[in-house]
């Protein structure tokens, strides 16, 4: 559960669909189309008649900004030009900041010639929400940050108590009221539709109507239960440059179905240090210790399971990791750290049962790849769990070193890495 970026495509569709509930004269039509790797462009043009009738803008829609500065925005294009552009760029690599990634999704919308660029953004912090508004929007808004009006909205008092009208920049002239109403509606949209961040930079006015030109939004995915309907069919794409491997996707799918938590991020599939750590807090500390000892580059994955997963879940989780770590041989052998703090209520023996099942299945491969396993855990039924692991080592003929709460939590890290 966390804040998750959504595509500009989805943000604009939501705005067009839902903002009129808060602002009845908002008439932005939400003419947007998204081209992905499998999109049938002819079909898309047939469904969205405006595509072939209007001049268009095309830009990648993959959760990164400054697209203009990276030369990735096509302006004032015909459908034929837009099409050609998408077909050329689709699947090609782009470098944004320090991140390289593949271009896979493009937003297409009508090209709006404009001069005026306004800026509005809403973010949240511990004390409340903050609205930022400026008539000097666009790519350079940060350079003119002193001209941005910042309106704080108290969490409990809400927007009705914030005197928006008086806080609107004087430069708006007779449009102050219109903008105040827009900002108020946008705020309600933000707070009632599960947003954690929203930025429209810039937006402009065409014949008095507000048109968003560029949008960035994050949702709080914990709101799903309440906002599923408002969100419609949107998806949460991975950050640019990170696509989920099938294994990561598999664990993510299991995670989504259970009350427990299962996380897997592959950092370096050729690394020879693999981890399976119980607990959100402990997993970070193990990772810290590994990188403190200079093995960050050798760390193959970040992995965490917690919230009392059942035997079946830990079995599938372990199998996934064992499968990954026994694909390529490493002359140094491999290390698997099965660590964790002293659990509060997770039944250690039960979670270990699933791990043991998977290890048993991989007996031959574990030996072939020279895998050494280090275990450290405490908590309910830990004696039983550790006993299972010790017995397993003898049974499989795989070296398994087992430690309980009397050994410092991360002690197994130097023990394991010294041998590496």
């Amino acid at each position: 559960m966390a804040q998750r970026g959504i595509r500009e495509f989805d943000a604009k569709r939501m705005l067009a669909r839902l903002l009129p509930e808060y602002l009845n004269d908002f008439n932005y039509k939400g003419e947007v189309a998204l081209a992905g790797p499998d999109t049938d462009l002819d079909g898309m043009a047939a469904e969205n008649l405006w595509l072939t009738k209007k001049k268009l803008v095309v830009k990648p829609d993959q959760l990164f900004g400054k697209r203009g500065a990276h030369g990735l925005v096509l302006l004032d294009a015909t459908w034929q030009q837009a099409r050609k552009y998408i077909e050329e760029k689709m699947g090609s690599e782009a470098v944004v900041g320090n991140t390289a990634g593949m271009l896979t999704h493009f937003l297409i919308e009508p090209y709006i010639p404009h001069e005026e660029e306004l800026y509005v953004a809403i973010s949240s912090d511990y004390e409340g929400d903050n609205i930022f508004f400026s008539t000097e929007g666009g790519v350079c808004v940060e350079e003119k940050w002193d001209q941005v009006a910042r309106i704080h909205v108290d969490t409990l008092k809400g927007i009705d108590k914030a005197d928006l009208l008086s806080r609107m920049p004087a430069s708006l002239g007779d449009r102050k009221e219109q903008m105040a109403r827009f900002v108020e509606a946008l705020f309600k949209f933000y707070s009632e539709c599960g947003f954690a961040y929203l930025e429209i930079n810039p937006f402009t006015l065409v014949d008095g109507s507000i048109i968003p030109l560029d949008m960035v939004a994050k949702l709080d995915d914990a709101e799903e239960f309440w906002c599923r309907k408002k969100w419609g069919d949107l998806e949460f794409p991975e950050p640019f440059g990170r696509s989920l491997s099938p294994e990561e996707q598999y664990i993510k799918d299991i995670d989504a179905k259970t009350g427990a938590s299962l996380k897997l991020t592959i950092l370096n599939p050729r690394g020879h240090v693999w981890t399976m750590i119980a607990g959100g807090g402990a997993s970070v500390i193990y990772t810290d210790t590994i990188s403190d000892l200079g093995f960050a580059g050798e760390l193959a994955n970040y992995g965490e399971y917690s919230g009392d997963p059942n035997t079946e879940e830990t079995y599938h989780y372990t199998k996934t990791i064992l499968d990954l770590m026994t694909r390529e041989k490493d002359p140094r052998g491999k290390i698997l750290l099965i660590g964790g703090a002293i659990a509060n209520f997770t039944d250690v023996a039960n979670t270990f049962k699933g791990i043991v099942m998977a290890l048993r299945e991989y007996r031959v491969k574990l030996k072939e790849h020279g895998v050494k396993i280090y275990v450290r855990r405490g908590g309910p039924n830990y004696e039983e769990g550790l006993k299972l692991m010790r017995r397993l080592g003898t049974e499989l003929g795989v070296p398994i070193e087992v430690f309980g709460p009397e050994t410092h939590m991360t002690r197994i890290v130097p023990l394991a890495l010294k041998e590496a």
Partner: protein
Amino acid sequence: MRENYSLFDRNTQSFVYGYQVNAIQRMLDFDYISRRETPSVAAIINPSRAGIHKVFWGTREILLPMYRTIPDAVAKHPQVDVMVNFASHRSAFETTMEAMDQDSIMTVAVIAEGVPERQARIMAATAREKGKTIIGPATVGGLVAGAFRIGNTAGTIENIVASRLYRPGCVGFVSKSGGMLNEAFNIISRNSNGIFEGMAIGGDRYPGSTMLDHILRFEANPEIAMIACLGELGGEDEYRIIEALKAGKITKPLVAWVTGTCATMLPGSVQFGHAGAKADTEKETARAKNQAFAEAGAHVPNSFDDYGDVVARVYQMVKEQGKVKEFAEPDVPTIPVDYGKALSTGLIRRPTTFICTISDDSGEELLYAGKKISDVLEQNMGIGGVIGLLWFKKELPDYASRFIELVLQIVADHGPAVSAAHNSIVASCAGKDLISSLASGLLTIGPRFGGAIDDAAREFKMAYESGLTPEQFVTEMKRKGINIPGIGHRIKSVKNPDMRVQLLISYARKNFARTDLLNYALQVESITTAKKGNLILNVDGCIGILFLDLMSSCDIFSKQDIDDVVKHGYLNGLFALGRSIGMIGHILDQKRQGARLYRHPTEDINYMLPTPEE
């Protein structure tokens, strides 16, 4: 009255929202080894059921009241000022807000993970406005050593004893991570005189109370000599502590470590397990925070590995300064091991009350007499085969299974007028449900109705085995004045034979190796029918006798097995089973028709009461 720096003491009582039987028992076990006088849980709030719940208080059982709503509980227990809220992420917000609306509730611990950020912020702001405290969401909670434990904090009783949490030490600890709380208790108890209070605020972005909130309480609490905290990358909570340090609001020595130093070394951005654990700016990185802590005068280890060493060093320092109170270690009462746990670890044993030798549902797949249900189906064992497994614990040869099925089909129904069907119809017409109506019919099965199968089998078997000739048997029975069971039919006779009997006999002749008892019975029949045409071997007698022939001609049954069948009334079971099919049919038939209550016509009853003179 409690000081306002203290959320819980040895008299604090709480409501547990949610029927969390394990957590409740853990809280009470903690109370017991802390030698509290009253249980820390005054009542349970369970939206689906009011009533009582039984818990252990040491070895004794006590009752906790259970209410459906928070106001109900509050009205009955005005002294309670804490709610431990186990509501799911879907209802954590509304229940917490409702609890904070109650004047008497001052602290709510919210356990649920996945509470939306806006809801969390509203809860936090409401608590601040009302001067109340929220711990969580997304946390295991926290505890005050020897006084009060929230839910599952600190895990098992063994762990609580190992970390000496049943009595107060002098260290105040706070972390984000609930999972690390227990580990920290362990580390701190090894490196000092132990925990006074330990809290986990939860790993979400907007916790209801911050680490600083708790640290300021620790600062104000004279029982606490030193403070330890464990932060995390992401967010700015740690900077609030650092500001307070710089401003001189924290004067007690503070051991601080921020985890997540690895983040800058890893490729790309990893979302760690906690929602809040992600550095969006350089300032939010673990390295920056640790450095800022050190600069502000906190005791910062080189890595988490040294956390315990630094705690030990600071503890020695405050001890030398005379800030640590000396106390004698109290005795710890032992908590009896839970029966289930002791049994599963082989510590104790107990004789069982029941033995079951026919089926087993305790494994991965249901077994009938050791045979997997999937094999039963795969091998098409049928109802006859299943009866073989569950009644005889044997795999019957095919012809035997089919014989049983033949019997079941034959006895399945005999029209609406016979006792069982009639009774079930009358019960059904009286508006009784299917099972009651069926039971009403089944209860007629006995010596006069249906029960002839058993009796016939027994009498014929006894006569045959004791070597009586058919003539001797008939004479003997006549002398005793007993009608031979299994002989005689109301309508059928030699000239008008019973089709069902014919079918059974021809099946047996074709499939059984021997039919000794049948042959004997037919000799008896030839004697009785010579006297009267309707004294034929009837269907009950035929089933009972053929079943014994089946068993003695099939080498999987011993003599003992055959004796058991007669002795225990297996054969009436066969009748009851088969006839249930018909009875259920009759009952459903009546229900479909919407049949009304049946009352027997009075003209059909001869009222013959004693006259007054008599």
